[in-house]
């Protein structure tokens, strides 16, 4: 069971590195913000799995609640800021 969660977190780390391509090479700023949000969502799962590896799930659940709130507020703030601008074309 412990070994399963160790390999599961390894696979999740590989999955997290895939949207980094879109963050680095996005054509618009919305693509970069979308990739950053996807990385944040997958990091929540990684933190939960690390909590099961270390047998301290009660502490890591509080961390992911705060992380989810920060991720959501960041996305909403960037969308609110970019929605008031117009494209240069």
């Amino acid at each position, binding site marked *: 069971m412990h070994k399963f969660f160790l390999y599961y977190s390894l696979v999740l780390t590989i*999955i997290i590195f895939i949207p980094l391509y*879109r963050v680095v090479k996005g054509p618009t700023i*919305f693509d970069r913000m979308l990739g950053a949000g996807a990385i944040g969502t997958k990091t929540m*799962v990684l933190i939960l799995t690390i909590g099961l590896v270390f047998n301290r799930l*009660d502490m890591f659940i509080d961390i992911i609640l705060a992380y989810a*709130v920060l991720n959501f507020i960041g996305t909403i703030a960037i969308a609110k800021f970019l*929605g008031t601008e117009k*494209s240069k074309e």
Partner: protein
Amino acid sequence: MIGNTLGIITLIGGAFFLLVGSIGLIRLPDFYTRNHATGKSDTLGIMLVIFGLMLIEGFTLNSAKLAFALIFVFLTNPTGTHALTNAALNYGLKPWFKQQTGKGGSRCTGK
């Protein structure tokens, strides 16, 4: 025992949906299609993972806190996706069409 087995199956299903969302994020041609791929697949994947952890934990306080995290993700992840798409539409980003040539072929159909 049965909870552990069901939980592990659900965790692997959640990892599959997270992988599908990531591949859709780098493979699809446009911002709106990428947003559609990652918005739905990531929400379903993270909900499946949290539900699997609830099955593994059993009926404890940790399970209740995970239920609150599940409800929070279910409410806020599509809201953030919708806000980002609305900002892109206000910004004037054009959607992708299959035929880019021709008169008015790449016009935005939205307002």
